């Protein structure tokens, strides 16, 4: 069941109605039932994988929870008898035991994801390697289907298990409630990647009908529909046209396709998030924010802090921090300090962790070398910009460049936009080599005449489409500037009188219906992140 469909609108309306008339205690059961119906509407066969991951996570969580509880009770009962050393040794023994459980859960859940998502990629590369070395044997290509949302719910399950290992909260003891946490329908398809302590209690608590929340949720859903149908699906036409056959195009047309793909993914993904958050808001649940106007970022590092925030947060808490603060990395730091000096030696373990994070983020997007290159592109820019920061500062001082004015911030914004857009050659290009070739042709032969010779009108879009794109980008920018200034747009709308509000809602629906870009049979295209 697609988010952008009449079926989904009817489904959410019916589910909300049933949810609000159901007795308080049973409300969460409606959400669970609704979530499973939603999942089964997309795929009945692959439901097994979701239930399997839920069961493994629940059982491992229970074991971890029991170990935590036992330790807590023992420490409380023997508080006065135990010395500091004894307490430390007990904690260390318990940690070792817990590590086995965490390893088992991560191995099973992540192993399943890796097998389904990367088996053919790894197998294909090994086959090439074997062939080049003259070794016999062939790893077969399997017809594997990727369960809906597996990349999202697997990360969610790992976060839950690691948090229990860290003793952050108590384990869930109700399998059905936990199943709801793992499958909540607005966020199962493409996130946001939820944390148990933020989402679970909201799902289990009953929520009453709240007119203001419902209207704000509907506004957010409409906003998401507009992003997806007015901008993302329209830009996709030109982007696909260029990337599917890049050879006849040159210069700024190639750059337009790469930058356009960045905007397409933003409108697509953040639009999907708006729909997810809007639906949850109607039901009284606040999902985590996943985008915070990334195109207002002044650096690539800031861009990634504003883009797919829940994935970034997950990587920070479960990969970056554990790696950079590990003993192995600390030893590496000590060793490199002796060789490269204090500055580099101190930073190297952090840089290495950051690089690994970006590689993982790249690979998380798909099983192809181009995603590895995409990770390397982003990691290299961030690490080199931090390394070169002292030189930049000296240079700016020497040239007496005022960095406290709008023009400088605008320059930084544009620089980030260009660097991000170039990175998109990797994520959208057919292969790594094609991406590099397109990058080269953009730089070597920019050809500004394409702006005047009608090249842009030969990409599957007419001038009316470009008007819609241009106007909607202006609307996005205006809303973005308002939000950057701390203005809460939806609260402002709520302050207006009834007639204006309804005019706005009807206008938004009309804009979606009239100016939305629809495929055959008036259906919207799939969300980009849905395939992850």
């Amino acid at each position: 069941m697609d988010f952008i469909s009449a079926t989904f609108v009817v489904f959410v309306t019916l589910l909300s109605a049933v949810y609000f008339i159901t007795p308080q205690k049973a409300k969460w059961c409606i959400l669970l039932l609704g979530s499973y119906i939603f999942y089964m509407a997309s795929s009945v066969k692959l439901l097994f994988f979701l239930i399997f991951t839920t069961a493994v996570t629940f059982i491992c969580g229970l074991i971890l929870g029991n170990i935590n509880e036992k330790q807590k009770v023992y420490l409380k009962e023997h508080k006065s008898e135990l010395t500091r050393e004894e307490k430390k040794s007990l904690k260390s023994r318990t940690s070792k035991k817990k590590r086995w459980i965490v390893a088992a859960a991560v191995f099973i859940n992540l192993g399943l994801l890796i097998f389904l998502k990367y088996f053919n990629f790894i197998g294909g590369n090994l086959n090439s390697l074997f062939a080049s070395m003259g070794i016999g044997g062939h790893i077969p290509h399997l017809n594997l289907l990727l369960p809906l949302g597996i990349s999202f719910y697997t990360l969610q399950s790992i976060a839950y298990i690691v948090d229990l290992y860290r003793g952050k909260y108590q384990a869930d003891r109700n399998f059905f409630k936990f199943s709801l946490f793992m499958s909540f329908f607005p966020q199962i398809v493409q996130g946001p990647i939820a944390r148990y302590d933020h989402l679970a209690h909201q799902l289990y608590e009953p929520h009453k009908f709240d007119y203001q929340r419902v209207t704000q949720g509907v506004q957010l859903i409409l906003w998401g529909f507009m992003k997806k149908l007015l901008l993302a699906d329209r830009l996709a036409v030109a982007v696909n046209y260029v990337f599917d056959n890049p050879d006849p195009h040159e210069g700024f047309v190639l750059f337009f396709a790469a930058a356009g793909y960045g905007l397409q993914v933003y409108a697509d993904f953040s639009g999907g998030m708006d729909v997810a958050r809007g639906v949850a808001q109607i039901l009284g649940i606040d999902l985590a924010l996943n985008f915070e106007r990334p195109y207002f970022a002044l650096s690539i590092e800031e861009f990634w802090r504003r883009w797919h925030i829940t994935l970034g947060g997950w990587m920070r808490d479960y990969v970056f921090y554990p790696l950079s603060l590990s003993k192995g990395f600390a030893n590496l730091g000590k060793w490199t300090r002796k060789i490269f000096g204090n500055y580099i030696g101190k930073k190297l373990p952090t840089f290495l962790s950051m690089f690994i994070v970006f590689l993982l983020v790249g690979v998380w997007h798909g099983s192809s070398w181009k995603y590895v290159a995409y990770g390397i592109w982003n990691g290299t820019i961030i690490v080199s910009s931090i390394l070169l920061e002292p030189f930049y500062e000296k240079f700016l001082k020497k040239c007496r460049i005022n960095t406290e004015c709008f023009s400088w911030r605008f320059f930084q914004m544009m620089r980030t936009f260009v660097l991000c857009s170039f990175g998109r050659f990797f994520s959208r290009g057919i292969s790594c080599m094609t991406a590099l070739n397109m990058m080269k042709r953009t730089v070597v032969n920019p050809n500004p005449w394409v702006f005047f010779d009608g090249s842009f009108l030969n990409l599957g879009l007419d001038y009316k489409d470009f008007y819609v794109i241009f106007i909607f980008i202006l609307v996005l920018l205006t809303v973005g500037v308002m939000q950057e200034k701390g203005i809460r747009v939806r609260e402002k709308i709520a302050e207006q009188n009834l007639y204006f509000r309804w005019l706005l809602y009807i206008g938004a629906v009309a804009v979606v219906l009239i100016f939305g870009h629809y495929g055959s049979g008036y259906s919207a295209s799939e969300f980009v992140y849905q395939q992850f």
Partner: protein
Amino acid sequence: MREQLLDILNDLRPDVEFEKEKKLIDDGVLDSFDIVSLVSELNSEFDVEINVMDLEPENFNTVEAMLELIVKMQEEG
């Protein structure tokens, strides 16, 4: 101890007024790079073992919270 901590913080980020800030993490004043450097400095300077489990925003949002964390770590040995 407070002075020592402020020295480390000012060394790390001279552009931040640490005494005034109340939401160093929640407002994104300190990023993850800063936190990793800060933790390594605190561990060696105060002979404690702050690890990944302690990297909660409430432990690093203010100078006071950091001091509390250091004292707790020192007491736990």
